[in-house]
């Protein structure tokens, strides 16, 4: 009891120290000097409440925790899924994918325009998550600057359409190739680096790209970004009210229906679904190919991998390049959807969110990445009504999710042998 009391007093004091000087006192600029004043009374009530709660919790820690542990734990159906043997899991996954695809295709015709928009955003993050999953989840290389490739893809399309008038469909592969090229370039110097050295170099690379985009004003428009990026067309049919480019027709005129701006949103959504399906398909094939096996082998044990005669350079470079290419596709699509891009959209926080999607998804599992992308995009959107608390809660959510499920939502399970009865 005495120990508990001491600990409780200490944590209560800590709560006071971390809250009072920064939340309880407001810095006010008064002319040229800086003064302080007390903040609103409600804040003090909240702070007192927080301190009392922390104190009581730490004081009666054992009894509170025992009450919690006596409540039966909420078993998520995820456990049932991950306990399945691999063959049944594959079959289940195939069926599940089919259902999801059908739902995804029917869905936009049922729900509101805002939800379709949000779903399109989710799909962009799914694509980014799947791409980064190759680098981080499969090849085990920590990349904190993934957003750079996303930016390269987006700016490729924006610049190609602005200077050369290329359409989305031509720019899409070029954007992917450009991003892949940058991935290749970055791959070279970092090949020798391990673990966290890699992290800082990729992070630096992401910052370099952002700074360049910000400062090459004559080319990229600097902080003002590039606007008026044309939307994608469907076989030369535009989705606007009037034809913007010569030679194109209008979707609603061709089909003889009234103009509705929702068509454009639905088209963009379906396009995103298509791109995601393409991404999933390609990555699934890649993982089963020798190069995919090599990525996983490299992640598991680099030395063993090398002693088996696998070329480390090629494996790492291919992971970087292919991962970057998908970010390039996503970037192209993002630029086309937004119609406006600026370096603001490609800050470190984006890289962090994508990485969080991969880790939360369970590193290496595609289903997990999709689930995590939905969680990471929809939850902040739901929290929008909390306004100024939104990002605060987002940060807290990242911490809590890691504590709650450190292995990720759907950890990937690969076939392995175990000695029976040996623990």
């Amino acid at each position, binding site marked *: 009891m005495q120990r508990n009391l001491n600990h409780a007093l200490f944590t209560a004091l*800590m709560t006071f*120290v*971390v809250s009072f*000087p*920064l*939340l309880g*006192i*407001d*810095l006010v*600029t008064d002319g*040229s*000097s*800086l*003064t*302080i004043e007390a903040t609103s009374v409600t804040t003090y009530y909240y702070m007192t409440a927080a301190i009392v709660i922390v104190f009581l919790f730490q004081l009666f820690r054992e009894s509170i925790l025992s009450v919690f542990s006596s409540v039966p734990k909420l078993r998520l159906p995820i456990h049932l899924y991950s306990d399945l043997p691999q063959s049944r899991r594959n079959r289940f996954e195939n069926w599940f994918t089919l259902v999801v695809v059908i739902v995804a295709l029917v869905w936009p015709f049922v729900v509101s325009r805002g939800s379709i928009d949000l779903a399109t955003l989710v799909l962009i993050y799914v694509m980014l998550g799947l791409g980064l999953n190759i680098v*981080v989840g499969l090849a085990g290389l*920590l990349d904190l600057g993934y957003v750079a490739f996303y930016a390269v893809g987006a700016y490729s399309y924006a610049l190609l359409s602005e200077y050369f008038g290329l359409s989305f469909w031509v720019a899409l592969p070029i954007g992917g190739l450009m991003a892949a090229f940058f991935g290749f370039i970055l791959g070279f*110097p*970092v090949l*020798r*680096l*391990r*673990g*966290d*050295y890699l*992290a*800082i*170099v990729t*992070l*630096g*690379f992401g*910052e*370099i790209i952002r*700074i*360049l985009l*910000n*400062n090459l004003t004559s080319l990229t428009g600097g902080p003002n970004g590039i606007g008026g990026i044309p939307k994608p067309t469907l076989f030369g049919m535009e989705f606007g009210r009037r034809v913007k480019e010569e030679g194109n027709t209008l979707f609603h005129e061709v089909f003889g229906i009234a103009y509705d701006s929702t068509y454009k949103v639905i088209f963009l959504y379906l396009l995103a679904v298509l791109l995601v399906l393409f991404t999933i398909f390609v990555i699934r094939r890649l993982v089963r190919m020798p190069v995919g096996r090599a990525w996983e082998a490299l992640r598991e044990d680099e*030395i063993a991998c090398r002693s088996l005669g696998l070329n480390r350079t090629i494996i790492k470079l291919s992971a970087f390049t292919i991962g970057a290419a998908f970010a390039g596709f996503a970037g192209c699509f993002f630029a086309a959807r937004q119609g406006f891009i600026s370096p603001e959209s490609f800050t*470190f*926080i984006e890289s*962090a969110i994508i*990485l*969080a999607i991969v*880790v*939360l998804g369970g*590193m290496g599992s595609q289903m997990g990445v999709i689930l995590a992308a939905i969680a990471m995009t929809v939850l902040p959107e739901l929290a929008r009504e909390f306004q*100024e*608390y939104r*990002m*605060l809660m*987002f*940060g*807290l*959510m*990242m*911490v809590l999710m*890691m*504590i709650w499920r*450190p292995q990720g939502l759907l950890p990937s399970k690969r076939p392995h042998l175990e000695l029976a009865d040996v623990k």
Partner: protein
Amino acid sequence: MLEAFLYFIQQLLNGLTIGSTYALIAIGYTMVYGIIGMINFAHGEIYMIGTYASFVVIAGLTMLGIEYVPIILGCALIVAMIVSSSFGWAIERTAYRPLRGKHRLIPLISAIGMSIFLQNYMVLGQGARDVAIPPIITGGWSFGGGDFQATLSYMQLVIFVVTFVSMYALSEFISKSRMGRACRAVAEDLKMASLLGINTNRVISLTFVIGAALAAVAGLLLGLYYGIANPHIGFIAGLKAFTAAVLGGIGSIPGAMLGGLILGVTESFTAGYFSSEYKDVVSFSLLVLILLFRPTGLLGKPDVEKI
């Protein structure tokens, strides 16, 4: 000729000033990395909190009519260190300790989440806008003649002295005291140290507290040097300090000091002779270049692969 030389000296002084504060922040990264092998992404935010805490104290004391600079500095330093250390302690306790021993990306994500949380915590507490503080240490020594005079401001002098004293105190603590010995033992081999009866949890907490305290010192010094703060200054400062730590070889305390100074000087020379927009590009390129030839940083121990 003389002017060019003086200009050079000026850039060097500016670079060393910034560099020494980077080094202070970098020590926090490097110590935590050396002991539990994780990148504490929220460390830049600890520095930002230190800046705000010291601003609160300075503003408060000025309101009370106290104008004797050493008292203001001393109080601000102590309070900032206490507040930042409490944050360091609390973060380790809540966000990192439950994740110890998990895959190394897990605490990293938790740290990034914590960093977002702390930034917005400060936005909530003090608003998102810049807070400016009037300079309390003014004046300096000018030397040289002609059109250009190099200046060593008293503020820069204070930065040098305070940084030097803190680093000296740290190295004495690490090399002489009982707790410091425990720190080194845990950094060497955590499992072995705990088998030998060292309370590793306490050592890890202490590492976070020391790192946070040094970041608070840097927060106070840089806050006064720039005279401005906002809730987002932590990210870029943290990034620079992390770069410095890696440059010097992460895990090595002298490496962090050296890396910080090199980074600061590089930045100031780029800004002085080339363009201040591209100073970050140059410092990251320098990092890549150094890592190309020394993959574990300048003073880092080469990785030994054991099978």
